[in-house]
């Protein structure tokens, strides 16, 4: 079941109403049933795996807590984390590694055949696996006690708003909330509803509209010119943000309506002034997961510089691989890791350079330059992320300087793939309009413009007007041919 469907709206409404009607002691059962129904709606076969990993992890967490000494705790932790990672490996990475090794063996003319498993990646596997692993490590570190209620733990793993594409909620933050009795709160409902609407706006009005163009160009970049490729790269940068942030907003909003608070997963990442800052604003739940469970255990930045850079490289390579079983994701992660390392190496030089050209006197201009440069670095990396293969990405990048023409007719031809007829200009301009609107709203939120924030919070008319405009934008400009969210494939 996808968020952007009538069936989800019916399901969600029914679940919310029932949630506030049933007694608090039975709510975990309702949420669990609803979550399993949501997950199994399209492929009931997936349920077996999530139930199995839930049961195994629940049992192991108790053993970790009960283990007498640190060595035993570590052993139990290693076994269970290993179990979860094995499942992830088999379903997600086995074929990737087997194909890569096979290609290598073929290149050296070795006649070994590595088997290929014909298996579908279960929805949300990467997300709930990381949720479980973070819980196990938190129990090991005594950050939280092992959950004694299997049902509550199962809800933590499978709670439907976050199940398919996050945020990756931490157990100390989410688990206690399931024990608190949630009464219907109008303020939380209004907030949650606004978040959901904004999420649907980002997904249906922006992301799905520009997806048509992006898919056309990325599927065959050699048929198009540099102008097409450049526009597709920019549009994909916004598509992936609106798609993923849209999903997160819907998830956060849906949970808020129930009374639960999810972590913020995006904080206007394209206003970042450096790649380091970008990763504190993009997919925050994942980047903090890697920081807490991989980067810091490796030593973080409290080690010699070379080791520190190696840690960064490892974290970003693993992060890239988490996104998908393809060399493109690995390279994408590697590019970000390399960018961060180079950023740290050159940080003093860049500061002196800016001082030298006198730009540090003009904070706003400096900030704008940094934002634009960071945006373009991220954009280049997204090309690799989006491409089907490394050669495909390279072919796309090589195509960027080709075929440009300095005339208005060329610009018209660049936007043509939106619809292949003369309405393409209108669709392009509409996309630009809504992307600009999104950036303006993000900017207002970023700068916490007092007047607007005051109006939003205190003026009922302004608040309602904004919501009505948002709903109308979705109803009139939404792309309703039900498409899945990009990050649900990870």
């Amino acid at each position, binding site marked *: 079941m996808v968020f952007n469907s009538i069936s989800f709206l019916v399901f969600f409404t029914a679940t919310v109403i029932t949630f506030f009607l049933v007694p608090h002691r039975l709510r975990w059962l309702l949420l669990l049933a609803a979550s399993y129904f949501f997950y199994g709606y399209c492929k009931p076969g997936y349920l077996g795996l999530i139930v199995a990993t839930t049961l195994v992890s629940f049992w192991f967490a108790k053993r970790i807590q009960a283990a007498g000494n640190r060595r035993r705790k570590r052993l139990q932790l290693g076994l269970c984390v290993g179990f979860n990672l094995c499942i992830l490996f088999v379903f997600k990475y086995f074929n990737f590694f087997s194909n890569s090794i096979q290609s290598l063996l073929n290149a050296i003319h070795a006649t070994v055949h590595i088997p290929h498993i014909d298996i579908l990646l279960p929805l949300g596997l990467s997300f709930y696996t990381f949720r479980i692993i973070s819980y196990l490590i938190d129990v090991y570190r005594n950050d939280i006690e092992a959950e004694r209620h299997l049902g509550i733990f199962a809800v933590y793993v499978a709670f439907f708003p976050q199940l398919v594409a996050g945020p990756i909620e931490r157990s100390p933050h989410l688990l206690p909330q399931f024990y608190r009795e949630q009464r219907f709160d109008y303020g939380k409902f209004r907030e949650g509803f606004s978040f959901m609407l904004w999420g649907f706006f980002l997904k249906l009005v922006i992301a799905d509209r520009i997806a048509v163009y992006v898919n056309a160009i990325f599927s065959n970049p050699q048929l198009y010119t540099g102008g097409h490729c450049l526009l597709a790269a920019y549009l994909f940068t916004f598509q992936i943000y609106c798609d993923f942030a849209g999903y997160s907003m819907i998830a956060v909003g849906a949970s808020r309506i129930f009374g639960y608070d999810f972590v913020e997963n995006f904080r206007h990442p394209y206003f970042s002034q450096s790649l380091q800052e970008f990763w504190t604003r993009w997919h925050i739940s994942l980047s903090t997961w890697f920081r807490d469970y991989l980067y810091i255990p490796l030593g973080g930045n409290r080690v010699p510089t070379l080791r520190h850079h190696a840690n960064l490289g490892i974290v970003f390579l693993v992060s890239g691989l988490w996104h998908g079983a393809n060399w493109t994701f690995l390279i994408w992660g590697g590019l970000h890791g390399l960018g961060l390392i180079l950023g740290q190496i050159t940080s003093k030089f860049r500061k002196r350079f800016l001082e030298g050209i006198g730009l540090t006197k003009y904070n706003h201009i400096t900030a704008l330059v940094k934002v634009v440069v960071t945006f373009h670095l991220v954009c280049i990396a997204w090309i690799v992320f989006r491409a089907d293969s490394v050669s495909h990405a390279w072919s796309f990048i090589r195509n960027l300087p080709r075929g440009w023409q300095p005339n208005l007719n060329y610009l*018209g031809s660049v936007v043509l793939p939106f619809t292949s007829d003369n309405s393409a200009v209108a669709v392009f301009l509409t996309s630009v309009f809504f992307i600009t609107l999104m950036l303006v709203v993000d900017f207002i939120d970023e700068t916490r413009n007092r007047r607007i924030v005051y109006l939003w919070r205190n003026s009922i008319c302004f608040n309602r007007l904004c919501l009505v405009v948002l709903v109308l934008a979705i109803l009139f400009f939404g792309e309703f041919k039900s498409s899945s969210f990009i990050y649900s494939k990870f």
Partner: protein
Amino acid sequence: MRNFFTKAFGFILILVAVFAGLVALKYHFSDRFSPGTSGIQGLLGEQKIDYVFIGSSLSRQGYDIDFLQKKTGASAYLVAYNGMSPFLMEPLLKFLVGYEKLRSKTFILEIRAQGVLAAPSLEDTRLFCESPVGLKNQLFQLFANDIPGFGWQQMYELVVLSGNEKILTFPVSNYFIERASYRGGYANKETGSLGPEEFGNLRNPLSGSQAMKPNPRQLASLEAILRFSKEKGLDVIFVAPPLPKPIEEDAVLKLNKQHLGSLLRERGFAYLDGAERFDTANHLYFADSAHLSTAGHRVFTEQVAEFLSMRQR
């Protein structure tokens, strides 16, 4: 809780009222946002046109209107919407003939086998959005009655969703559209050609038993067009745009095309088979399996212009 339900109800009420109002306004006035150099609105802005072409994207890419006007010395206008078939042509023709401000000597209607074989459908929602209210009402009834699977979702997509981008951006987008079109056709558009290998691999895109014989609803519309033309004493010419040789030689299409040609001639209508004197084996003349390239449309327009000039004499 009662307060919440009151507020929620009020919000929904206001939303529904605003939504309904906007949909009604759009239904009545969407045609006012159309560009002035293409489509129905462009034609309705003219008063006297010698040749009115009605067709699909094949006609839009098949005719160089400027060149045709120079060759024939007569005025011409092209009304082309993707997927145009007899089913859609019938109400459009009747509307244009009934529009008092427009006087036209001759109607040149595109007739193609694929159009008659396929079930009624609406491929190009611009036809609906650019139509005045009267024609919109007729089209809407037709779609609801005769397009298979035309349900609530399709109705919503047509009435609420389609054409909104044009309305939102019309001051800017119409400027670009009007620059790129001339009297319904393209102005200065360069369309490339197929390579020899791609040309050789072309196949009839319609397949399956449904594609074997004319769709009854399409045939009924064609009959209605013929009857209407006789009733009103219209000068109507049917033109089949040329297709690449591998497609022209497809057995099903060939048989249906011959059948259509015979039918039209027997009923006393002029029929021009565009493939007869066109080099359909030349890959340079075609952009894909159905549309002509820039080189092709020049040649085809010249042939049609010659045909029209001979008729004039």
